[in-house]
């Protein structure tokens, strides 16, 4: 009777281990695919980030801003007049 129980327990344990093994293998292999997807997403995001960085660099180029400013009618200051403010003497009564 005890021997039969032992066999039953052993069989059940074996089945549980086999199922766990299959489950774990399937789960790990699914993780591999998931990892690939994450890496692809990461690559796409990095690529998009790089594109946006390039766009910012291009739009903030001083040469381009200068050309745009000129086309909008801005010009460099010429004939600047400096006004000398006299230092107050004996300001207080």
């Amino acid at each position, binding site marked *: 009777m005890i021997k039969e129980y032992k066999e039953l327990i052993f069989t059940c344990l074996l089945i549980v281990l086999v199922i766990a093994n299959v489950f774990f293998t399937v789960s790990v292999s699914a993780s591999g695919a998931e990892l690939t997807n994450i890496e692809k997403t990461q690559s796409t995001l990095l690529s998009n980030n*790089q594109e946006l960085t390039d766009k910012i660099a291009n739009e903030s180029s001083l040469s381009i801003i200068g050309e745009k400013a000129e086309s909008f009618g801005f010009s460099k200051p010429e004939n*600047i007049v400096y006004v000398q403010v006299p230092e107050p003497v004996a300001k207080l009564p």
Partner: protein
Amino acid sequence: MLLGYKLFFWQVIHGEDLSNSARGQYQVGQVMEAPRGNILAFDGSPLAARRDAWLLFAETPNLKEKPEKIAEKLAPILEIEISDILPLLSKKGSVWLPLAHKVSTDIKGNIQSLGFSGLGFEREEDRYYPEASSAAQLLGFVGKNEEGGNVGYFGLEGYYDLTLSGKKGYREGDSDAKGAPILLGNFKESSALRGVDLITTIDKTVQLTIEKKLKEGIEKYGAIGGSVVVMDPISGKVLGMASHPSFDPKRYNEYNDALFKNPVISDTFEPGSIFKVLIMASALDAEAVKPDTICDICSGPLKVDKYEIETWDSKYYPDSTMIDIILHSDNVGMAFVGGKLGADTLYDYLDKFGIGRETGIDLQGEVSVPLRKKGTWNIVDLATASFGQGVSVTSVEMIRAVAGVANDGMMPTPYVVSVLKGDGWEEVIQPKVERVVSQKAAEEMTAMMVNAAKNGESKWTSLRGYSVAGKTGTAQIPIAGHYDPKSTNASFVGFSPAQNPKFIMLVTLNKPQSSQWASETAAPLWYSIAKDLFLYFGIQPEN
């Protein structure tokens, strides 16, 4: 028996081959490229930056359309001739063909929208220059080495190549039939280390201003070339450095190699009268002369050995003081000063000013011409060196030395990179300065330069009211053992304000044709640039 033999044959005799073959199917090795570091201006905006680009390739067995049709559509998008691409597409016997390198993401999108099968893209790195060819000789360029890898040449790209390059990574592991990694299998990874970013001292506004003005100046004065350097004389930070003619780093292979070197650090010239600043400062420091010392040989040409030393305009001023000698840029007077100093002392001072030695600026390609050995100078060498002949300097050597006068006698080491910035760390480069002359000597020399700028031969072009210490230099060009009678190098070095200067600038023009005198070429160009810099740096007139 047969079964046993077969098992032995496959498992023992061919076991290793089969095992390797199987490993080749599930083990994947991949080199991970390290992105090259960016080169940034002082405000963090890019001067040279990495960006994604693409290699366009064709898998010929998968091409469904005729090569002629594909070539016809691709050529205008890639901005090339059909004849450039058609022979490649029509090539027999090839399976994989590279069609174009460094294709931008926008163009990639346009090509993909054509829907041709058999065309593909592979990521590769490109260098992007938001300010186009600005500062090209300062930046250098990224070219290819013999193995086809990216290598920086000249300028910052060359000097900091290892720092910018980073370190490639490698990944190896088992993968399934779809290429997904098997996490329980063998997995080794050595991460790629991205290249370090360089934050430079370059101010884009200064850089673009000097480039524009230099180009205009070269055209106006008919020079064959020229350079402008702007530096902070207190710290040695290079704010701008431009030379013309130059090149476009994006298309470096279309230019002559001679344009790659930076004239500011790689070309030497006889400085002429701007050198008088160093000699006079040395004599003042050594107390060989005082500002009011009278020159008792300044009444006419000076006979030295078999040579006769004359003034540039054949005018002579008897009983000139040292102030007058700098004001009139008097060669005879400077020979007097040189004589008071003596050859060995003069040599020691020039050595302290770094003349004849590289400045150590962090740019690839710096050269220097050593001074004649101490103890071998004769009286002619001493006299001519006193007014800047018979010695050769680079522009960066010269501006550093004069910065020593501008900065109260403390000479800075010029540098371009102020911060090295990696992932999660940064290293700030500290300025280096060393004393070359006393503060008193530097102040006396500065006062002489202010007087020269206000009342000297270039006074007509000076900007009234602004505090400028400056000196012109018109130098003859040595060719085959004598001086070229027709051409000169014109230069002007100056700093402003004279006290607590915000910038020092050296302008050099090679062989200007409109006039041989620096006072009529380099000086007005200096003031033309300075006018913009005064506004930018907030320097106001004194009164």
